[in-house]
């Protein structure tokens, strides 16, 4: 098991800030883990890969409209979960 704090936090910030940040990230990462496979793929590519909707659509073999719907639904789910968990 790898410590989340060690994975996610840069060496350049203070311990309190690091703890708070890793705690928030824990929640976000956990929330993303609850998405459907297609929703996760869209979120990964859009936010981590910094790809445009058109690029994501090409990679996933979907229409841009379908990607936008997946993105919207994924963010709604994330928002609800993060809200429920008190972030």
């Amino acid at each position, binding site marked *: 098991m790898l410590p989340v704090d060690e994975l996610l936090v840069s060496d350049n910030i203070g311990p309190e800030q690091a703890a708070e940040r890793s705690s928030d990230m824990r929640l976000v990462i956990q929330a*993303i883990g609850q998405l459907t496979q297609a929703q996760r793929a869209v979120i990964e590519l859009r936010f981590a890969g*910094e790809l445009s*909707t058109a690029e994501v659509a090409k990679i996933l073999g979907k229409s841009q*409209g379908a990607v936008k719907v997946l993105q919207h639904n994924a963010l709604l789910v994330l928002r609800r979960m993060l809200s429920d968990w008190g972030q």
Partner: protein
Amino acid sequence: MMKKGFNDILDACLDRITRKGDSIEQCLESYPEQAGELEPILRAAISVKEASSIEPRPEFQRLAKARLLSAVAAKSEEDGRRSLPIWRWQRRWAVALSVVLALVIMGGGTVAASTNSLPGDLLYPVKTTTERVQVFFTFGKEAKANLYIRFAERRIAEIEALADGERNIPAFVLSRMNAETDRAIALANQNGSFNNETIARLVRLTTTQRMILVILVGRASLEIKLIIREALRRAVDAYDQAVLLRERIQQQLNLEMTPALNKPLTIESESVTKPGYQLIWNAGDIGKARYLNAWWLL
């Protein structure tokens, strides 16, 4: 119709915020009628973006700086090397025989020394030829699939090592990685009775591939982006197929298990989140890439 309009607006705002640096407020000003619905979604998006843009450790900074300049030329070269099918069988024998002869003449030293070579190194062709021979002399679909998985894992390690060393990543390494993964999946599809661990390795492999390629595609130049994007598309397809294979095995296991023993299969590298904030982390083979985009490990 109304929903489609909102999706377009949301997408435009996300582009402005995540790619152009606009603030949420600037976006909301542009769409006052949708502001109430947009704002909480955009705030969730910002959280996700922050989780994915963790300040990278030096290893990642080196990875991000990876130059991929020779990719296009190398891909053309690799395509040109493909032989006609009619010669393929004879060529396989010829390659096998030549390596066996080389081993007899030189001993295993050169082959062993080639194990750690990277694309572009003098001994790299020895490494890939040895791999082809290993495939040739490996019998049984599952054994062969495991070999292809191991080779695809090597390709990832090579890509990481090249990136760490700020060396060019030739396109043929990406296409070989995809091809080896596809072959392993094809073999698994042909034989429905693969071991759980083999399928778990496939899921781990494709998860790692996606992670590495997403990192690369986000930072590559436009010219190279197309090649990495194609590799990523194939990796995403491969991941989907690996997950389907895993689900198929899960269903078979569920049918065989008694109700008391009927609990979900968990795969180490694809850590499973359960309610109650339990996070299970096991990066396994993922190694250096673990510091980024941690949700791939979920």
